[in-house]
């Protein structure tokens, strides 16, 4: 083989590898559909989107699971948002350089802690705390899960929001300060609004992280597939889509209705995360085009 041919082979391999991510996304979708779509044949749609999940008796209503996921995610992001954005503002706008150099690795540590470890700490620390604090029969509640999810979402929110704040041109801050505005007013009136799409992206990706999280939620939410209908449902056990798949897939027969429905839940999760990520990258892409226009 000549050198020329060798080069061609290598270039070919690299090109194939370059397209591999498209291949994998497609494969994932194909296999989810292949195993999950038959669920629509085995269970009537009206039953699939009903409110009772009790597979042993043939009830496959995934609505409580979807609502469980949405409720836990919503509460998690409400917790993660103020903490995450404040920390990002502090790191980007207020902290001296050395403090930043110390704190950023700490946030990275949190991002690196496996979710099963957070779930374990959740069981031993948060569950008893929630039970006694709210005087509940059990500490395995949606709120406990939401707190752990917030811990999981915070590093994502912090790092992306901080990046967004860092890309705000210094001339904005200088212009504001030159007008006699204080640094505090500059941060909240100029810098943060200028970075608002970045912060929005951060929140969306945080939601994406929380939505797809499995082990931590499964270990502390009590896994009761009940409809979260009232506001205080968050203080009761509930069940998310991810936890349902993880806890039940091990026990079902391949190809059974239950198996198909679990894959169908996988399709729903896939589409949700797809929507969130496409929207987030669309938002940040538009912002980039806009700022390129302004700065040019």
């Amino acid at each position: 083989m000549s050198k020329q041919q060798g080069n061609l082979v290598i270039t070919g391999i690299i090109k194939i590898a370059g397209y591999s991510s498209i291949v994998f996304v497609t494969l994932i979708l194909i296999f989810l559909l292949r195993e999950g779509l038959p669920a629509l044949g085995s269970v009537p749609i009206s039953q699939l989107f009903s409110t009772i999940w009790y597979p042993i008796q043939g009830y496959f209503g995934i609505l409580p699971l979807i609502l469980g996921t949405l409720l836990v995610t919503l509460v998690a992001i409400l917790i993660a948002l103020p903490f995450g954005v404040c920390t990002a503002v502090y790191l980007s706008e207020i902290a001296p350089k050395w403090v930043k150099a110390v704190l950023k690795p700490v946030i990275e540590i949190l991002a690196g802690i496996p979710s099963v470890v957070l779930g374990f700490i959740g069981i031993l620390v948060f569950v008893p705390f929630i039970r006694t604090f709210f005087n509940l029969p059990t500490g395995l509640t949606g709120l406990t899960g939401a707190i752990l999810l917030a811990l999981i979402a915070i590093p994502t929110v912090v790092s992306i929001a901080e990046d967004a704040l860092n890309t705000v041109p210094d001339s904005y801050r200088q212009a504001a300060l030159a007008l006699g505005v204080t640094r505090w007013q500059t941060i909240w009136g100029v810098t943060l609004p200028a970075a608002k799409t970045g912060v929005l992206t951060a929140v969306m990706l945080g939601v994406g992280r929380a939505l797809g999280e499995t082990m931590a939620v499964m270990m502390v939410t009590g896994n009761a597939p009940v409809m979260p209908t009232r506001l205080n449902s968050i203080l009761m056990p509930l069940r998310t889509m991810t936890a349902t798949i993880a806890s039940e897939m091990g026990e079902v027969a391949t190809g059974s209705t239950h198996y198909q429905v679990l894959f169908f839940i996988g399709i729903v999760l896939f589409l949700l995360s797809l929507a969130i990520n496409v929207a987030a990258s669309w938002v940040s892409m538009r912002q980039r085009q806009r700022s390129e226009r302004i700065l040019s």
Partner: protein
Amino acid sequence: MDKSSRTSTLIAESAGYTLVHLITLATIIPILGLVGYIIAKGSPAISWQFLTAAPTDGMRAGGIFPAIVGTVYLTIGTAIFSVPLGVAAGIYISEYAADNAATRLIRLAIINLSGIPSVVYGLFGLGLFVIFLNFGTSILSASLTLSIMTLPVIISTSEEAMHSVPNSFRVVSTSLGASRWQTIRKIVLPQALPGIVTGVILGLERAVGETAPILFTGAAFYLPQLPSSPLDATMALPYHIFVISTQVPGMPVEIQYGTVLVLLVFVLGMNLIATLIRTRARAKRVW
């Protein structure tokens, strides 16, 4: 602005600063507290026997050796598939790809891969590797599943590392008569190596700690002996933690914390190495 309203603004602002500081502390301190707490509660359990013996008495005694070995196998297995593929994909995007619709599609695919929930990767691995390709619940299936999950991290970080190599390096190399591949191999890759290695470690760090993708693709509840081939199932630290904290009643807390500590040392050790490589490379960088 008159003087009194200015003073009240200043008071409000310093209260605001204090609040931001407090919230940041409220974010940081629990993280350090968590790690410190696990170290304090877990280290009494750590002994030579704990690290090198198999669990006994329904996991309530003995060690966690099979889980440690399993995690090492899975990490190596994941690296074998994801590192060459991820770095090659990074090279393609950074050095070959034109700025066109196909490349945008690749980027979109990478973003989506990184957003797919880990348990969905588990389902995919079950459907493709375990059932369709008939690899069974095995180290092979689990490693392949983890590889695809790790891929987006490795691709994006290696692309970024190569992207940050100044273009003048490539121009000089090509003007001396080097081909594009020679330029990549001799100039771009060596310069980007620390960044790539950092990305690889961070990607594998995630794979080490994941439970959901291996639940139905390769993790075993309890195995008396070590796996002997890639087609065997294996115990793994994250799944073992799940098992001993939710499935085994009357589990001694000490063993639980000890196991968690071992996993944390794995993960944070990798994190530390990645940080060190990155800092050293930044300090040594000439451009």
